[in-house]
C-alpha cells in the first residue's frame, strides 16, 4: 500500500508538483497579506522570470552571460519610455520592449556567440556597460541618473494591477506558466539535446543539435523573458533608474543561476529567492552583514557546487533509497 503510494507520487511527481505550486500561489495571500511580504515574493517572481531564461541559456550552452541586466533594462525602459513619453498602453509597450530586446539579442548574439568562456562573459558585460551608459546619458528620454517616474501599472481585464495581492496572482501566474513551459522544454527531446549541449558541444552537434541556431534562439528567448521581467518591474514600481540594471545586477542574476543549479528550472526560483531574501536576513547582522551575505554565498557554492536544487534532490533521493531499503528488509 505504502509502496504503491510512493510509486504513484514518484511517477506523477511533476504533475503533483505543479498542482502543489498552483495551490501554494493561490493560498499564499490568504496566509499573509502583508504588503511587505508580498512585495518581496512578487520581486522574487519577477526576477525569477529573467533567471529561468538565463538558466536555460547558461544551463544549455555552459556559457556565462554577465550582461542580462541589459535585457532587463530594455524591458523596463522600453515600457517606461513608451508609456511616459509616447503615451502607449502598457501592454503595447511591454510587447514592443520584448521585441526590441529580442532584436538586440539577435544582432549581438550572432557575432558574439562565436565567442566562448571568458571572452563571452566579458563581451556580454561590455554590452551591459554600454547600455547602462546610454541610460545614464540620454536623459531627455531616460531621465538620466535620476530615473524615469510615472510609469502606469498594467491592467488585466479592466483590473488595474496596482496592489500587491493582485500583482501576486498576476506575476506568479505568469511565472508558473513560464516554469511549466521550461519544464516541458527540459523534458522534451530538444531539451535532452540541450542537456548534452551543456556537457559537450561537439557531441551534441554530431547527434543533430543545431548548435549555433540553438544558442542564438536561447539567447533570444532569455532576452525576451528578461525584457518581460523588466517591464513588470517598471510597471510594478512605476519608476526605473539606471543603477537597477548595472553589471552588478547581471552578476547577481548569474549567481542566482549557479546557486540554484545550472539547468535546473526550479533551481532558478530557488536561487532568485535566496539572493533576494539574503539581505533581509543578513541586515539583522548589521556591521557583519557583508560577512553573513558573502559567507552564505561562499558556503553554498563550496558545499553544494552542483546547485542548491540538485543538492536537495540528491538528499531526497538518498532518503527515498534508504526508505526503500529499510522496507525491503522488513
Amino acid at each position: 500500500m505504502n509502496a504503491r503510494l510512493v510509486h504513484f507520487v514518484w511517477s506523477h511527481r511533476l504533475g503533483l508538483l505543479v498542482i502543489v505550486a498552483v495551490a501554494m500561489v493561490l493560498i499564499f495571500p490568504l496566509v499573509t497579506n502583508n504588503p511587505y511580504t508580498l512585495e518581496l515574493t512578487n520581486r522574487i517572481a519577477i526576477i525569477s522570470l529573467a533567471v529561468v531564461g538565463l538558466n536555460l541559456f547558461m544551463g544549455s550552452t555552459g556559457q556565462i552571460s554577465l550582461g542580462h541586466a541589459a535585457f532587463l533594462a530594455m524591458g523596463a525602459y522600453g515600457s517606461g519610455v513608451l508609456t511616459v513619453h509616447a503615451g502607449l498602453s502598457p501592454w503595447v509597450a511591454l510587447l514592443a520592449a520584448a521585441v526590441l530586446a529580442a532584436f538586440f539579442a539577435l544582432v549581438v548574439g550572432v557575432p558574439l556567440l562565436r565567442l566562448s568562456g571568458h571572452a563571452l562573459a566579458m563581451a556580454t558585460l561590455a554590452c551591459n556597460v554600454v547600455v547602462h551608459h546610454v541610460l545614464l546619458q540620454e536623459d531627455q528620454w531616460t531621465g538620466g541618473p535620476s530615473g524615469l517616474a510615472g510609469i502606469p501599472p498594467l491592467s488585466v481585464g479592466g483590473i488595474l494591477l496596482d496592489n500587491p495581492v493582485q500583482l501576486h496572482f498576476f506575476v506568479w501566474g505568469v511565472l508558473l506558466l513560464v516554469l511549466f513551459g521550461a519544464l516541458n522544454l527540459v523534458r522534451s527531446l530538444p531539451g535532452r539535446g540541450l542537456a548534452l549541449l551543456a556537457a559537450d558541444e561537439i557531441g551534441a552537434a554530431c547527434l543533430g543539435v543545431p548548435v549555433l541556431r540553438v544558442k542564438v534562439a536561447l539567447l533570444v528567448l532569455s532576452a525576451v523573458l528578461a525584457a518581460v521581467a523588466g517591464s513588470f518591474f517598471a510597471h510594478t514600481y512605476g519608476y526605473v533608474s539606471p543603477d537597477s540594471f548595472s553589471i552588478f545586477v547581471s552578476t547577481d542574476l548569474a549567481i542566482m543561476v549557479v546557486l540554484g543549479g545550472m539547468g535546473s528550472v526550479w533551481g532558478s526560483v530557488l536561487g532568485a529567492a535566496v539572493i533576494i531574501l539574503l539581505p533581509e536576513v543578513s541586515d539583522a547582522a548589521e556591521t557583519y552583514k557583508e560577512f553573513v551575505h558573502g559567507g552564505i554565498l561562499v558556503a553554498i557554492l563550496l558545499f553544494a557546487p552542483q546547485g542548491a536544487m540538485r543538492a536537495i534532490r540528491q538528499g531526497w533521493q538518498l532518503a527515498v533509497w534508504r526508505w526503500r531499503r529499510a522496507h525491503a528488509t522488513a
Partner: protein
Amino acid sequence: MRRTLWWLVAGMLLSAAPVFAKETIKIGAFFDLSGRAAFIGTPTKLVAEMVVEALNAAGGVGGKKLELVIADTEGDPAKAATIATRFIHKDQVVAIVGPTLTDEGMNVKKIVHTGRTPVVMTVGGDPVILDGEKFGPARWVFKSPQRSSTAVERLFTYLKEKGLTEVALLTADDGFGKDGLRWMEALAPRFGITFVAKEAFGARDTDMTAQLTRIKHAAPKALVVWTIGPAGAIVAKNRQQLGMTVPLFQSHGLPDPKYIELAGAASEGTRMPATKLLVVDELPEGDPQKPVIQDFVRRYTERGYHKQFPINTHSGYAWDAIMLIVKAMEKVGTEPEALRSAIETTKDYVGVSGTYNLSPEDHNGLGVDSMVMVEVRDGRFVLAR
C-alpha cells in the same frame, strides 16, 4: 484642544498598563550603509542615532521614547522600496527618514504615498519633492538638504558680484551632477552668465586632465565643478597639475574637510556654496542658527564621530530631518495625515542646515539665505570674501 486630548489618552494609557509605558514611537531610518554612497550614508546614520538619543534623554516625545529602525539600502532603488514597505507594513513606523541617493528616493515615493507615511529624505536631488505625472506623487515626501537650485542661485549670485560671468562647466554624469547642470543651464540667463565650455566626467573617474585641457583652451573666467565625493578633489589636483590659474568653484556637495585632505594643497582657494555648519565660528552672534549649530558640533565631537567622518556640509541633514518630524509630532501626534500636514506647515524651525519654512508648494523650506559661500584658506574652510 486636540493636543490635550492626545496627552490625556497617552497619560491614561501610561498609567493603565505598565506594558504600554514601554511602547515607543518608531521612526524608520534607511541609508546607504554598504553601497556606492556608504561614505555619506554611514555618518547620516550616526547623526540620526545621535539625535534620537538626545531626544530620548530629554524625555522623548510626549512621554514616549523614540525608536529608530535602521536599515541598509545598499544603494539599490529596489532594495529601498522593499525596506520602505517593510517600515510601513511590518515595523509600522510613524515616519521615515532617508534614503541617501536620489534614485532610491524616487522609487520610494509611490510606496509612502499609498502607505500614507510621511518621509523626510536626506537626498541631494530635487525630483523627489516634485509632484506630478513625470515625477510621481510627492504629497508625503519632504527633504531636508537644500535644493540644487538654491545652491546654484547662491553660487551664481556670488559669481555675478565678482564679475566672473564667463564660466566653464565640468559636471559629473551621475544624478547629482546632472541635476546641477540642469539648474545651472536654467538659471544662467537670470544672472547674465554664459558658458564657454561644458564637459562631463564619470563620478568614479580617476583622471580629468583630458576634459580640463579642453576647458583650458576655452579660457573661462571661472571653472565650476558639480560633483560629490572624491572626483572633485581629483579635478582640483588635475587643475593644479595642468598649471591652470582659473578660479575653481565647487558645488555644495564638497564642503567637507575630506575634500581638503584628498586634494591637499590643490584645494587652496576653492570656493563653494555651503551650509553655515562649516563656518560656525565666523557667524555673527545674532545669527539664530549659531547656538543650534554649536550644540550639534559639541554632541558630534563628544561622540568622536569626527575622527572618521569630519563634520561636513551634509552632517546636519539627518538631524534636521528627524527634528522636522519630531516638531510636527509634538504638535499633532502620530496620526499620519495630521503629521504630514504639520510637517508641511512647519514655520521658522531653526535647524543645523538653515531655517526651515515649509509650505504645500515647497517641501524643502530652505532659501538662498541658508547658504554661504566658503573658501579653502590655509587648509580650512572660512567665509569667502
